[in-house]
């Protein structure tokens, strides 16, 4: 019974790691395909939440039940879950801070723009 649960946890963790690898690849292609800064924020958040938080959770739940890691496997699992929580809290906060600062400093124009109430001069052409 215990070995069946172990197998299920290992397959679930490997699926999360593979999902994270695919999301990383999609986000890094999106960093090149999107046109300007405000659109690339979307690719960044895909790459951080889907591409970093999920594989870390998968690797952590594998580490709890994976015998060849030795006696430090509970350290790896617990610290991995803490790392996933830290990234899930800090990545959106950092993205919002850098987006607000770039808009207030007037570095990148808002290109697919309908109306910009914060600063009408930042509004680029419509597309």
């Amino acid at each position: 019974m215990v070995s069946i649960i172990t197998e299920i946890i290992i397959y679930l963790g490997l699926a999360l790691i593979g999902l994270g690898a695919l999301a990383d690849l999609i986000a890094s292609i999106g960093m090149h395909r999107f046109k300007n800064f405000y659109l690339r924020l979307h690719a960044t958040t895909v790459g951080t939440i889907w591409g970093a938080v999920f594989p870390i959770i998968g690797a952590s739940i594998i580490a709890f039940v994976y015998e060849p890691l030795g006696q430090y496997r509970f350290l790896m699992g617990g610290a991995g879950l803490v790392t996933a929580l830290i990234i899930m809290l800090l990545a959106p906060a950092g993205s919002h801070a850098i987006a607000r600062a770039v808009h207030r400093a007037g570095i990148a124009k808002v290109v697919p723009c309908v109306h910009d109430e914060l600063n009408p001069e930042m509004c680029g052409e419509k597309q």
Partner: protein
Amino acid sequence: MDLVQSVILVFLPLYLVAIILYLIRAIKGPTIGDQVLAIDSMTYDLAALLIVLGLFFKEPILIVTAIPLALWIYSLDIYIAKYLDRGEMGG
């Protein structure tokens, strides 16, 4: 080589290709915001890659390197945002 190692070995090149594409955008990004975003994504993916490599090499102590990477990249975000907003560092 058991199941976990062989499956991770399949997914490792995807992480490496993603990191290289992020690095290209971080070098040639048109504005400083793009560079910071690219370094941001690259470092979070590097943290995930280090934990996955810890499973691959059966070295649990590699988990220690992930938490300082996550905290460091958040401090980079906040410092750059504050510098662009007010034109000063620190504080």
